[in-house]
C-alpha cells in the first residue's frame, strides 16, 4: 500500500476553530480506595482521580465543555451543522446524549446529532467525523465531544484510575482554525482487550491483551504510519498527546515512539485526574492548546479498546491568539477541586450505592 492512501484526506483543509474542556470538581485520593481493599499505596498507579458530582453525567459535562468552546469564538448557531458525543457512559442506553447537548446549546433543530461508541476512542472518532463534514463541505462548522464518567467494579484495578472529564472541539475550515489538521488516519483491528456486555454495570479486561497487543500496538502503528505518510519525525513536534490509561503506559509509549517527557508534559493529565476514557486524549489536547503558540506542531494519538487509534498531526495558527479570554482553561478545572476523603461517599457519588 502506498503511504498517502492510508491518510484520511478531506476535500477542503480543516482545523480546530475552538475548543473547551470540563473536569468535575470531586477528587478522591486513591489511598482511600486502597485502604478499603487492603492494597499497599505503592501498588496504586496514581494519587487522585476526578469524580462527578451527584447531579452530573456525560450530558451535563458535554454541555459545559461545548459552551466553553462556543464562548471562545463568534460563530452563529446556524453555522454549526453537527454535534457528536463520543462516550462509553451514556446517561441512557437508548436516547441520544447529543440531542440534549444540542438543545442546551441552542443548536436545534436543523443539526445532525448522534452518540458514538468506540470505548476510549469514541471522542476522536467524533473528531474524525466532524473533520469529514467540514472537509467535504457539508458543514461550515461541526462539534465533536469526548466525555466520560467512567465506571469501574468496586475492588477492580480500574477503580484506581477510572475518572470523569473530557473536551469539545469545534471544527471549521483551515482559514478559521486555531490549529490546522495536516493529516489524520485511523488504525483498527478486532482485539479482545476490554469489553462490557449489555445489562452489565462494569467492563472487564481481556486477560493479557490489555498492554502490548492493544494499547501499545495500536497507538504505535497509528502514530508511526501517520509520521511516515507525512514524512515527519518525533522531533518535528513541539507537543504530543496520547490516550492515558495510567501514567506508566503513557511514559513507556512516548519513549518507544521517540517522544520526550517535555513533549508530553502539558497534555499529560492522568497523574492528576486519572483516565477519563473517551475524554482522555481530547482533554490532553485541550490542555496543550491552552499553552500552545503559533507554529507549534502537535501529534495527537487516541486509543480505544476493541481496538483502534486515531492519529492527527496539527499545526497551531496565529489565530490561537484571537480566542476570547475569560473562558476556563483545563488548569482552572484542575485547580478547582473538592476532596472526597471517604470511600463510602465516593460509592454514593458513583451511584454504586443508593438510598432505599
Amino acid at each position, binding site marked *: 500500500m502506498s503511504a498517502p492512501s492510508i491518510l484520511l484526506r478531506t476535500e477542503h483543509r480543516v482545523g480546530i476553530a475552538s475548543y473547551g474542556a470540563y473536569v468535575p470538581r470531586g477528587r478522591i485520593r486513591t489511598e482511600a480506595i486502597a485502604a478499603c481493599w487492603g492494597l499497599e499505596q505503592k501498588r496504586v498507579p496514581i494519587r487522585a482521580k476526578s469524580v462527578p458530582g*451527584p447531579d452530573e453525567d456525560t450530558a451535563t459535562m458535554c454541555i459545559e465543555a461545548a459552551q466553553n468552546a462556543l464562548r471562545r469564538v463568534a460563530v452563529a448557531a446556524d453555522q454549526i451543522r453537527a454535534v457528536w458525543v463520543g462516550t462509553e457512559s451514556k446517561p441512557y442506553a437508548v436516547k441520544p446524549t447529543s440531542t440534549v447537548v444540542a438543545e442546551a446549546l441552542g443548536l436545534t433543530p436543523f443539526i445532525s446529532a448522534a452518540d458514538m461508541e468506540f470505548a476510549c476512542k469514541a471522542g476522536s472518532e467524533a473528531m474524525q467525523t466532524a473533520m469529514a463534514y467540514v472537509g467535504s463541505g457539508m458543514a461550515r462548522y461541526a462539534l465533536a465531544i469526548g466525555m466520560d464518567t467512567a465506571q469501574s467494579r468496586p475492588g477492580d484495578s480500574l477503580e484506581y484510575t477510572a475518572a470523569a472529564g473530557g473536551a469539545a472541539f469545534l471544527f471549521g475550515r483551515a482559514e478559521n482554525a486555531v490549529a490546522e489538521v495536516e493529516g489524520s488516519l485511523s488504525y483498527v483491528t478486532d482485539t479482545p482487550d476490554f469489553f462490557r456486555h449489555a445489562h452489565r454495570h462494569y467492563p472487564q479486561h481481556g486477560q493479557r491483551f490489555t498492554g502490548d497487543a492493544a494499547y501499545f500496538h495500536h497507538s504505535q502503528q497509528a502514530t508511526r504510519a501517520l509520521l511516515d505518510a507525512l514524512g515527519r519525525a518525533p522531533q518535528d513536534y513541539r507537543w504530543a498527546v496520547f490516550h492515558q490509561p495510567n501514567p506508566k503506559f503513557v511514559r513507556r509509549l512516548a519513549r518507544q515512539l521517540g517522544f520526550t517527557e517535555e513533549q508530553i508534559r502539558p497534555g499529560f493529565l492522568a497523574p492528576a485526574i486519572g483516565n477519563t476514557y473517551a475524554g482522555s486524549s481530547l482533554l490532553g489536547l485541550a490542555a496543550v492548546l491552552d499553552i500552545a503558540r503559533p507554529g507549534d506542531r502537535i501529534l495527537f494519538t487516541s486509543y480505544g479498546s476493541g481496538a483502534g487509534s486515531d492519529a492527527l498531526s496539527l499545526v497551531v495558527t496565529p489565530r490561537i491568539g484571537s480566542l476570547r479570554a475569560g473562558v476556563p482553561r483545563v488548569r482552572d*478545572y484542575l485547580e478547582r477541586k473538592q476532596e472526597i476523603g471517604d470511600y463510602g461517599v465516593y460509592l454514593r457519588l458513583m451511584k454504586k450505592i443508593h438510598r432505599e
Partner: protein
Amino acid sequence: MELPRYHRLRSTFYRLQASRCAACQATYFPPRPYCLHCGSRNLEELRLSGRGRVLSLTRVYQPSRGFSDGVGTLTALIELPEGLRLIAQLTDVEPAEVETGQEVEMVVRRLRTDEEQGLIVYGYKFRPVVGARAAEGANSA
C-alpha cells in the same frame, strides 16, 4: 412537575430562555406570550446571561419526592443582571464556601437524580464562578 411541562419549558430549563416586552421592557422568566404589565403581545425572546448574585440562601433537609439526593443541599434566591430574581439550587459548593452577595453562574445539571426508570430531567442550577471568568468578573467590578 409533570413531564409535559418540563418538555414544554426545556429551553427555559436548559438555557434560561426568557421574554421581554418590546413596549414596556418588562421581562418574564419563564417566557410569556403577552405582557402582564401593559397587555402587549409584542414580546421578544431573551436569553439570560446566566450570571447572577446570591441574595439569600437556605439548606434543604426535607427534599421533595424525586430529589432524595438533595438532603442538605443549598437553595438560593438569585438576582440576575436582567432585573429578575429566581430560586435555584446551588451546586459544586459547600455551605461554608458561599455567602450572600456572591457571584454565581448558571450550569445545566440533573434536577432529579433518583429516577432509575424515569426520564432524566436536566435544568439550571447555579455555582460559584469558575476560573478565568471569576478573574474577569473581579477586574470589571
